[in-house]
């Protein structure tokens, strides 16, 4: 097996430095030339930092597909379609050529998220250094305590139907959608309010002019920016108003449309269907591509949005690709056949790590490359330290026990045997390239030392063993043997299930009796919801920018990893039947305190610092036992497709699309016209 290429944050930075420089240089629109059609439209070096005189107007180019439409009079010229100051996209390799399509695959409407991540565009996005930068907005400001967020829109940004987008769309969205009690009873979307229970309060939105709007919260909302990447804060008022009875010109027509679509009431139609572009291809949005057909069909097609708000540093309107197709598959084997046969151009979603060898073997014949991207996924052993079972609870609550169990794991062996050596033995912690990377936690107690593990368990008071050599809860004659079940949703035959069995063996080798048990999803959910889970072998992600992901897993809020779930439930509602009060000195109290502080700090450096303190506690306490991490996401990229490189892969950073898919291009577009 070839040696694994690992990207540290530093290296990732180095790669992106080049691109960032390009992007910076391009911050001013290219200087004007006489004709927009002129092939030399873009200057090699942007002249100065001051924008060119507005009267002359910058020169932009457009893809051939659109130039034809402009010529036929079906589309306004590119200058009128772009904002005055368009977004200049950073590129991973170089500026590219327009045209061609990319073929992908999906498992049906439930798997719409791939395309959704490609097309959902909102105010900001991560740069290649994983720091938030303006994307759709021109800039933003936040006050010191994080209660007031002001965004400036790019003047002249258009919805995909050509209508200009202004802060009026934000106001309309706020008044008619976000605060509509019929649509959102009892404020459910966490981004728009602060406080809980009595103190729960909706933000206020104001718009001093057409291109500025402000969100004002009753309490600090310092992490808001991280939720502004994909989810919009505006609705196309001119289009959406027809779907609300109060604003519709013709409410009867609306009622008829609701019935015809098979919905019981307008609010269901609005909330489940009309406001999503993937269910409603007519909905204007901002993405690089717009849906051309219904996603319930066998092939889902998206095609370039002629009004997309971004350009490359040469002034070429993005995206480069004319469109993308997603073909429906129901079985992974068919998907693998397509992949190995070179019928998929760009995809990480649904590609299985276990198929690495198969995919590598066929690289030449399928004319593609497998790019190994570091992904957020870690495999973790979750010990329920708030278990209903008191004996087990005090066993797991013992810090030495958790450390001993961590030392009992031969991570290198598991990585080689079950994960083809593609993972990294580490604790659950932010990725190496993450702005929140924490070296101490990553490497805490990851060495394989069963002798020490045995010593620590003996010293912790679990030295007595039963007839089979397994440790008992105490040295009393009638003490029970320690035993727990690790539940997992990995079925027989998967590498993960196999890893679970390996871990069981390793725990048993230090005298701790346990079993791995495959449980079906619904049952798994039931078990953790009712706190009937001893332990779990599961995955944990959100490690690329965990701060942006609100540290959900680090705080134990993601209940499907229930290491302290019943404790957290106690803080939320002591009356909750599964709530258990944690001891006064329990680490979860300190973690919660620190998080409270993060939540009132508008300063990103201070946020990172406080988050690092949380991770210090993790490194001491090992709330979860990480096995292997940075498990890669394999991205299959057809040869000739450019501007993609190894980039971190996580839901919160848009999976394989963190590097703006609008900049993907074909070296020979003519060969990929579909």
């Amino acid at each position, binding site marked *: 097996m070839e040696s694994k290429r690992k990207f540290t944050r530093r290296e990732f930075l180095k790669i992106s430095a080049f691109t960032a420089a390009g992007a910076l240089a391009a911050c001013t629109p290219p200087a004007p030339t006489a004709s927009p059609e002129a092939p030399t439209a873009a200057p090699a070096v942007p002249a100065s930092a001051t924008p060119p005189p507005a009267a002359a107007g910058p020169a932009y180019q457009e893809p051939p597909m659109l130039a034809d439409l402009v010529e036929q009079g079906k589309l306004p010229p590119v200058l009128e379609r772009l904002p005055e100051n368009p977004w200049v996209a950073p590129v991973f390799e170089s500026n590219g050529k327009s045209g061609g399509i990319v073929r992908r695959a999906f498992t049906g409407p*439930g798997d719409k998220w791939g395309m959704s991540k490609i097309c959902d565009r909102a105010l900001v996005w991560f740069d290649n250094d994983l720091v938030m930068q303006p994307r759709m907005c021109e800039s933003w400001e936040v006050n010191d305590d994080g209660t007031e967020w002001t965004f400036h829109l790019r003047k002249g940004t258009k919805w995909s139907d050509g209508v200009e987008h202004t802060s009026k769309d934000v106001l309309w969205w706020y008044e008619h959608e976000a605060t509509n009690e019929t649509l959102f009873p009892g404020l459910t979307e966490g981004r728009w309010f602060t406080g809980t229970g009595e103190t729960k309060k909706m933000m206020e939105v104001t718009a001093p002019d057409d291109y500025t709007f402000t969100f004002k919260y009753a309490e600090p909302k310092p992490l808001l920016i991280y939720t502004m990447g994909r989810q919009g804060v505006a609705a196309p008022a001119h289009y959406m108003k027809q779907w609300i009875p109060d604003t519709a010109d013709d409410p009867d027509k609306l009622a008829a449309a609701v019935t015809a679509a098979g919905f019981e009431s307008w609010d269901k139609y609005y909330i489940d269907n009309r406001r999503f572009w993937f269910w409603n291809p007519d909905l204007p949005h901002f993405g690089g591509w717009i849906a051309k057909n219904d996603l319930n069909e066998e092939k889902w097609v998206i095609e370039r949005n002629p009004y997309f708000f971004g350009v490359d540093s040469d002034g070429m309107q993005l995206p480069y690709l004319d469109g993308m197709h997603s073909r429906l598959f129901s079985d992974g084997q068919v998907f693998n056949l397509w992949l190995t046969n070179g019928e998929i151009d760009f995809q990480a979603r649904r590609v299985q790590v276990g198929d690495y060898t198969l995919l590598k073997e066929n690289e030449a014949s399928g004319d593609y490359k497998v790019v190994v991207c570091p992904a957020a996924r870690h495999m973790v052993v979750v010990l329920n330290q708030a278990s209903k079972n008191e004996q087990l609870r005090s066993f797991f609550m013992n810090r030495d026990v958790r450390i001993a169990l961590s030392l009992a794991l031969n991570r290198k062996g598991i990585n080689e045997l079950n994960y083809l050596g593609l993972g990294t033995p580490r604790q659950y912690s932010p990725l190496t390239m993450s702005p929140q990377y924490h070296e101490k936690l990553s490497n805490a107690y990851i060495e394989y030392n069963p002798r020490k593990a045995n010593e620590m368990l003996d010293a912790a008071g679990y030295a007595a063993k039963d007839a089979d050599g397994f440790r008992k809860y105490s040295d009393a004659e009638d003490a029970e043997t320690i035993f727990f079940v690790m539940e997992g949703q990995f079925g027989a035959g998967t590498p993960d299930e196999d890893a679970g069995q390996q871990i069981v063996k390793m725990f048993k080798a230090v005298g701790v009796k346990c079993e791995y048990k495959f449980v079906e999803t619904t049952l798994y959910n039931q078990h953790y919801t009712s706190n009937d889970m001893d332990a779990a072998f599961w995955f944990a992600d959100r490690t690329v920018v965990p701060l942006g992901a609100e540290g959900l897993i680090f705080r134990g809020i993601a209940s499907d990893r229930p290491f302290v779930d019943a404790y957290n439930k106690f803080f939320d509602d002591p009356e909750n039947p599964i709530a258990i009060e944690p001891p006064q000195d329990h680490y979860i109290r300190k973690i919660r305190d620190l998080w409270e502080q993060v939540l009132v700090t508008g300063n990103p450096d201070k946020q990172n610092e406080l988050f690092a303190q949380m991770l210090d506690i993790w490194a001491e306490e090992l709330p979860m036992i990480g096995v292997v991490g940075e498990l890669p996401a394999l991205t299959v990229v057809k040869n000739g497709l450019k501007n993609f490189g190894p980039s971190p892969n996580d839901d919160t950073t848009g999976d394989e699309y963190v590097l703006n898919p609008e900049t993907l291009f074909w070296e020979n577009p003519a060969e990929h016209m579909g």
Partner: protein
Amino acid sequence: MLGYVLRRIAIMIPTLIVISIITFIIIQLPPGDFLSSYAASLRAQGEVIDEAEIRVMRERYGLNQPIYVQYGKWIKGIVTRGDWGQSMSLQRPVKDLIWQRMTLSMVLSVVSLLVGWFIAIPLGVYSATHQYSPLDYIVTFISFMGIGTPSFLLGLVVMFVAMNYMGLNVGGLFSDQFILAPWSWAKVVDLLKHLWIPVSILAFNGTAGGLRTTRANLLDELNKPYVETAYAKGLTERRVIWKYPVRVALNPFFSTVGWELANLISGATLLSIVLNLQTEGPMLLNALTAQDMYLAGSFLFLLSVMTVVGTLLSDILLAWVDPRIRMT
């Protein structure tokens, strides 16, 4: 005869009501509901979903109502408006979704059924009339293989061979560029290029059963006195066999034709999944695993209706084919 048919139809109504109730209960039996499996699938993919959001959604879908209220709403829609409800996972009216895949499902099922019969009957007759001949052994051997090999396994093997050694594009019923294209001659040709894989696999499996049945039944008939009489009267061998015992031996085909009606929809689900055929089967399976209750319920209900109607049809057919059967 007419009275018999009317009576049978009258009995069908309570049968269907009972079936619809049982269907609905069965769908609700597994723990959780559509939203819990929806949330779980999101989490498994690394997406987030808020508990509060789920609560609101549950209310909106009426999933927190008692089961009889949900059932009442569903049945009322079907009876009064022909509205089968809305699929929660696919966001489309159930009716449209089922129709969308109907044509391809039917083409696949009918073609494989006919191809299967076309092979099974002549071979079965040959096997029976030439019992223990070398060809009979060969046919018997192959037919046992057909019964013994699961279609999905065969599907995988054929797909692998077709792709690796014949350079064909596999998975699905159309090549990539024809999927969304309007119907044309080229598209039909493309369909035929893909259809042979599932049809031959299904026919291989289906033929085996039919062949064994024909052979066994015909063997029973061949020794009966009426056959001897027919020979004694000087009829040709071909005429004797095809006119009398074969017709009797074919009765099982007609009595099972009713089940094929339901198979038109849900037949070959496994094979469809493996070969990526976008027929009704995989959609039914997805609906069941996602606990998309209106879609799954309507499917199961439709299948039951088809089976009930099919049984009636096959009874009528049988009476028509075999004058010895009397309806009273």
